[in-house]
């Protein structure tokens, strides 16, 4: 295959909205979904004479994420103006950070589904203000401008071009998102635009040192779209090069409906952003004490938690990763295990059974009526042979529906496992008598025969019989015959 001759170089730029109450430089609300232009002040409109003042919380949130992705925090930082004319930018410049960013030189270690591990270096993470929103669609004779989003704090996280495959990009984004969500300073919703990603990608012949010409992909609305668009670009660029052409440096838009990237036509001159230090904001120094303080506020992050789960609960790496990728799931899991459930069983029951039911009902763990203690109880009832697995699976949906404890349900419905040997002996005799054919088969050495008899026992007891005892009883009775 031709593509074996090439290797891919990918870098990602992620913008994360920080969940402050007010905007980065003024007191407008950051709430999503308000009437156009109502979440604004003279500052977010960039009205003449208005001046920015930095929201301290945004800076702290930025530092927390930067710490979470192992960045160094600048001792001193400043803001700069980045200029371009577009109606979404009310001042015709964006307050961003150029040469003294908030943080730099971080990394995330990611593992793909196929167990491909890589350290993704992060070049920098800096603060900047969001732009407004343009609507080109609803009117034929003009575009509509809404500045509610203008000035919402963003952290831009830029990787080094370390990623080599779309799968790595996907894994990086997944871990980045879960890390930020753990910290709790952004909801990272791609649908609402609180997490946005642009990708840079180029290919080069294997062994070549210098980078190939890159394209930038925009309009990526999900992690899957990121991965697919990258694969599309790899194929496209490979084809271009193979056919003797050269890749053009350009911005391309991902068209999700057509599953392809298309050139973003633009008559803009080559960008010249004319960065210079923002004279309306003073520099900031961040003391090491402050950094330590913020570090202490960080929760255990997904990567560390995954390692701990493997060690502490003897889970497989894959199971641990699945559990920790969502903080609430992992929290739930830990409470469940700490209240007595077997760690492996808890992992299975939580991720397959309970989440399965919730997914089908389109519900989330957050509002789930089944407390982790109650799931733990259910699992312990199995361990203590009060109920068997089959009954447990029957009970769980009812727990989800009603929120009742498994004990109550079992009691109410008389579902306790029947372990009364006398009762079961009686029943075994009856069943053996009623199925002479099976007895014969058993004597002939047909192993299946006993399974049939066990099934009959379970049927008679409506599944409540303790399968281990039943098995034992039948074995004993048959061999005595």
């Amino acid at each position: 295959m031709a593509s074996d001759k090439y290797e891919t170089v990918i870098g990602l730029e992620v913008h994360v909205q920080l969940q402050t109450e007010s905007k980065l430089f003024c007191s407008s609300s950051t709430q999503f979904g308000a009437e156009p232009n109502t979440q604004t002040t003279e500052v977010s409109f960039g009205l003449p004479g208005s001046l920015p003042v930095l929201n301290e919380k945004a800076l702290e949130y930025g530092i927390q994420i930067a710490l979470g992705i192992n960045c160094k925090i600048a001792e001193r930082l400043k803001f700069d103006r980045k200029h371009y004319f577009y109606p979404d930018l009310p001042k015709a410049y964006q307050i961003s950070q150029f040469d003294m960013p908030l943080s730099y030189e971080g990394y995330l270690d990611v593992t793909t589904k196929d167990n491909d591990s890589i350290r993704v270096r992060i070049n920098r993470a800096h603060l900047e203000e969001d732009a407004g929103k343009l609507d080109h669609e609803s009117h034929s004779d003009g575009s509509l401008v809404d500045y509610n989003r203008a000035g919402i704090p963003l952290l831009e996280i830029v990787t080094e071009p370390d990623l080599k495959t779309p799968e790595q990009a996907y894994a990086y984004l997944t871990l980045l998102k879960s890390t930020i969500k753990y910290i709790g300073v952004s909801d990272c919703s791609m649908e609402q635009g609180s997490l946005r990603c642009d990708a840079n990608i180029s290919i080069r012949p294997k062994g070549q040192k210098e980078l190939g010409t890159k394209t930038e992909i925009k309009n990526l609305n999900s992690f899957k779209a990121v991965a697919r668009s990258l694969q599309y670009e790899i194929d496209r660029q490979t084809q271009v090069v193979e056919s003797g052409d050269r890749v053009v440096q350009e911005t391309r838009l991902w068209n999700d409906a057509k599953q392809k990237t298309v050139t973003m036509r633009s008559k803009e001159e080559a960008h010249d952003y004319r960065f210079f230090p923002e004279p309306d904001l003073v520099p900031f120094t961040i003391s090491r004490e402050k950094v330590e303080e913020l570090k202490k506020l960080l929760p255990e992050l997904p990567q560390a938690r995954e390692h701990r789960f493997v060690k502490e609960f003897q889970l497989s790496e894959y199971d641990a990763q699945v559990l920790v990728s969502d903080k609430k799931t992992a929290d739930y899991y830990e409470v469940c295990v700490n209240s007595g459930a077997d760690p492996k069983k808890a992992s299975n029951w939580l991720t397959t059974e309970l989440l399965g039911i919730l997914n089908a009902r389109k519900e989330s763990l957050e509002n789930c009526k089944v407390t982790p203690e109650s799931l733990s109880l259910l699992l312990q009832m199995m361990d203590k042979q009060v109920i068997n697995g089959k009954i447990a699976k029957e009970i769980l949906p009812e727990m989800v529906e009603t929120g009742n404890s498994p004990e109550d349900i079992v009691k109410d419905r008389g579902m306790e496992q029947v372990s009364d040997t006398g009762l079961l002996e009686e029943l075994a005799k009856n069943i053996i008598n009623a199925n002479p054919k099976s007895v014969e088969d058993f004597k002939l050495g047909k192993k299946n025969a006993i399974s049939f008899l066990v099934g009959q026992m379970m049927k008679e007891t409506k599944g409540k019989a303790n399968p281990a005892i039943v098995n034992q009883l039948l074995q004993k009775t048959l061999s005595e015959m």
Partner: protein
Amino acid sequence: MAKELYEMTVVEAVNHNKDEKNVNELLSSLSKRAEKVNPKVKAYLNWKTEASEFDGKTSKDGKSLWGVPISIKDNICTHGWETSCSSKILKGYIPPYDATVVNKLKNEGAFIFAKCNMDEFAFGSSCESSADFPTLNPWDLERVPGGSSGGSASSVASDEAIVALGSDTGGSIRQPASFCGVVGLKPTYGRVSRYGLIAFGSSLDQIGPLTKNVEDNARIMNVIAGYDPKDSTSANVEVPDYTQTLTKNVEGLRIGIPKEYFIDGLDPEVEAAVREATAMYEKLGAKVKEISLPHTKYAVSVYYIVATAEASSNLARFDGVQYGYRHPSKDLVEMYMNTRSQGFGEEVKRRVLLGTFVLSAGYYDAYYLKAQKVRTLIKKDFDEAFKEVDVIISPTAPTTAFKLNEKKEDPLSMYLSDIYTIPSNLAGVPSISIPCGYDSKGLPIGLQLIGNYFDEATLFRAGYNYEQTMHWNDKKPSI
């Protein structure tokens, strides 16, 4: 001859205003005066007519400027009152908020009387670049009032204002004060909030008062100075009562004369007046010595790079999208190009282009960065000087008021006329211009006193002592 109400100073107006009736008398007198003289000097874009009344709902209790009418440069935002920077691009722009200084003045009982003409976006030293009309100098109607706060200075000088606010980026308060024979202060950078001042050069701009005498100036500063949480660059430094130390004498005050300021191009009559003023200070007990500000000759270059760079950025927002003038167009880029081409005057275009160029890729280091480095040297000059002296004395401008159109076609020579005022903005130190005599044509000459950071009090004291000795401001233009 009894004094007319419109001739009053701030101090006199405050004493006069016992009740609402007094204020309305004053307002009426001032309106009539404006009706009479404004057609000649054209200092105002608009003002409160005779029919308007003072909104006396606020009680006088404890308000230091109750019922004092204030004239305000048109680049300072006034809620509900058109604020256009004398530019076509902002015609019809009515700010939804008051600048912090306007708020503070209103809180002390003052009210807005008029909006003053200016060089468009404060780009100029003559008031000729106003998109509306040039303002004229009441001392000679064929001459400019200076700029960019030409309307503010001219209105105070022609007694159609009790007091005016101006803004100063490279001399825009002091040079017109000098040309019009009034007192004008550029405070320390960060002393007065810039919130609501439509920015020209953000790292240089300061709002300051233009007044009939030094005491008035101190009174206004008592109100407008101070930290503003809405302006990150305003300093949280205590504001003294500037009127308290006015009357203290200047015995032992150390005054420096920078040798680099007495150069070719300095009008001999201006030089003589400044030398005489210096001699008077010695008589009053001050100690005068020559000092050096070695990087003075680079100030104009640094200024025109830094100020235009910041201006090109600050003026980028005037694009016709949200407010002000929009040139109708079907295409976005064409709308931008035409709106800015039609909306901006020639001097604005010149400076925006220059500022854009010095920030553009490949030129940033050679111009902008270099200028910011030389700015450091200029600032250090002042730091060194103020180890030896308390006040630096100089002419405010190299000449008295020049004629209309005299320098209009030669931007560089216009820029060079700001040589004495620009260094204070680059360093951020406070400076005041006070009248120090008249030339043979009867035109006022301005004396500049430059002080150390946040030491406006010493400037007021030095200015007051000299003013009370010489009484130059007793003379008024006949208009």
